[in-house]
């Protein structure tokens, strides 16, 4: 009698694979809009008009640009004037510290942000003329000279004080780019900073109250509370998160989340940090996986040999 097992195996495998294909890749393809990555090129924004001069930029940032009216720059010895929850009460969200924005954000994005924040952030739909609302970050109207040159100077200054890209840890990237809106409780992060461990319960509660105050302002500004991102790397997946940061509107039309403007390298770091929170054991999974595999393959080989030996007498 001819051995039918290979044929049977082929039938079982083919039917299983077809089912898998239909309920997984194919169904996902139908259910979720596919957004191609633009590689964080910000091609809709103009390139920087001129070579910037950091020294002139410094004067502008501190002076005519008025950046320091709202933002702190710790790297330049300018601490925050207000506590985060108070800043959020005035602006809706705490304007981020500018020490490292030169390395976190793309330069085209920064230039456009300074001139027209709602445009760069892609939230113009929230700040239309009819709505009468103004973006809380005021647009820079020029310091008397060529505005493009001035913007380039400020960008050059921000770059000059920032950390080097390789010194930016995933955590720093996350805190700068996302941390003012998104808590990450599994990494102990709240929108007003990393939650310290308090000895006294009343201090811990006082901290929580500040966070709640902050979140109230943020909710009023955004229309909803931005979600805690602890597990988002698993609930959304890397591709979604990456294309979503690049252009939230492409994935969720009308969303209140701004285009954040990070460079491709920083986006990777942000995602790395999300993995550190939601997929902590990925390296261990690889190594344990290899070991288990080796063990099981050896087991399978022994099982095969045993079967051969037992069945020798049966034919």
């Amino acid at each position, binding site marked *: 009698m001819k051995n039918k097992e290979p044929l*049977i195996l082929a039938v079982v495998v083919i*039917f299983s694979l077809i089912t898998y294909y239909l309920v997984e890749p*194919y*169904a996902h393809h139908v259910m979720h809009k596919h957004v191609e990555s633009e590689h964080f090129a910000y091609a809709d924004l103009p390139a920087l008009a001129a070579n910037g001069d950091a020294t002139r930029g410094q004067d502008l940032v501190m002076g005519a640009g008025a950046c320091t009216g709202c933002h702190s720059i710790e790297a330049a010895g300018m601490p925050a004037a207000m506590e985060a929850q108070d800043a959020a009460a005035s602006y809706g969200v705490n304007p981020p510290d500018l020490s490292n924005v030169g390395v976190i954000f793309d330069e085209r994005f920064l230039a456009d942000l300074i001139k027209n924040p709602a445009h760069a952030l892609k939230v113009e739909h929230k700040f239309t003329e009819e709505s009468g609302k103004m973006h809380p970050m005021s647009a820079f109207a020029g310091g008397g000279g060529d505005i493009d040159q001035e913007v380039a100077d400020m960008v050059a200054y921000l770059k000059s004080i920032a950390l080097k890209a390789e010194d930016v840890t995933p955590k720093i990237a996350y805190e700068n780019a996302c941390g003012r809106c998104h808590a990450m409780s599994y990494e102990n992060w709240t929108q007003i900073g990393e939650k310290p461990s308090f000895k006294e319960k009343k201090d811990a509660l006082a901290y929580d109250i500040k966070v709640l105050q902050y979140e109230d302002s943020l909710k009023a500004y955004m229309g909803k509370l931005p979600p805690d991102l602890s*597990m988002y790397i698993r609930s959304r997946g890397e591709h979604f998160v990456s294309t979503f940061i690049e252009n939230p509107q492409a994935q969720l039309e009308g969303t209140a989340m701004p285009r954040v403007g990070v460079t491709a390298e920083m986006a990777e770091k942000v995602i790395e940090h999300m993995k550190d929170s939601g997929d902590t054991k990925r390296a261990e999974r690889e190594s344990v996986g290899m070991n288990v595999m080796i063990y*099981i393959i050896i087991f*399978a080989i022994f099982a*095969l040999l045993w079967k051969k030996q037992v069945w020798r007498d049966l034919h």
Partner: protein
Amino acid sequence: MAHFTKATSIKDWLNQRLAIDTVERVMMSEYWIPKNINFLWAMGMVLVITFALLLVSGIFLLMYYQPNVDTAFYSVNYTIMRDVDFGWLWRHVHGVAASVVFLIIYIHMFTGIYYGSYKKGREMIWVSGMLLFVAFSAEAFSGYMLPWGQMSYWAGMVITNLFSGGSLHADGLVEWIRGDYVPAQAFLTRFFMLHVLLIPLAILGLIGLHFGALRIPHVNNQDGEEIDFDKEAKKYLAGDKAGSKVMRFANDFMSKDMMVVGIYLVFFFYLVFWNYGFAMDAVNFDPADGLKTPAHIYPEWYFLWSYEILRPFSVDIGLVAFAFAQVIFVLLPWLDRSPNTVPANRRGLFAIWFWVMLVNLIVLTAMGKLPPEGMFSQIGFVSAILFIVQWLMLPFITMFEKKV
């Protein structure tokens, strides 16, 4: 009173009290298995092993899981996935095994259908098998509630809603099942109880029944051959191992079982470490939120075909069709009127019936996941009708089958 003598060995001591030799003979060495069976007959053992994996990994998870709506999600996604050493491993093993067990169950069921292994004294094997299917379904559903993610909550909402019976508006029954108006603490605690105690107990009992039901009729074979087990067993015991048509369960068939289990485990652990996404739905990594309905609510893949039988119809008809789909497989031994216990390919029209049924279930599965729009809902509708018509036709097709 029985007569006990001084034991000559531990084995003898046990033998006098537990008759372990007899048990060994009845269950293992003289439990005769036909030789002409293929690897599909190892699926039962693969199921036993998968069930063991579920049980062991579940016990580990149980040590840290907290059945509380405020802490359940955290206990799973933080404590088990991050804090506890190898907690992630147990969770992935448990999640993947829960999904793969259904793949194997379906293969096992369709093997039974193809070879006619539910007939001529094997009806109880089939019925106990279907009861196992029901118990596993309940086990999988209740387990899916436990992480208290978005899909837990919303699938729990949708499925328990079915019990309102459409226009019967039996909302009282739904509330009774939930213990509340919506899925909340009472709901989670009772599904926790079902998942870790009552249903596993039922499964263990049913596995015992399933095995018991196998012992007298013996397993079927791939050629539809009637085997005289006593005669063939004598031949084997007389030393003509090669000439006999049967073999011992242990170690003869067991060695093949283990070979298949070995290959299966390679596949299984590949999924656990590198391709677990299909078994652990991404949406369930968002915590449950009763105010935010997910864009697409769908059950796990193994429930999709019956879900799709519910969906294309109006509520009441859908529920009737759904109820029909749930019970109809149990009745197979009686709906099949043919006396032939041979592989489907030798049974004329039944062969067509078999392959159409299989393909149609896959189509239903796919449509159950896809959004019910346009072409998908039409295909789903036709497939659901076809499913019902096929079962209604079965007695007539098989009644006129020629005896082979």
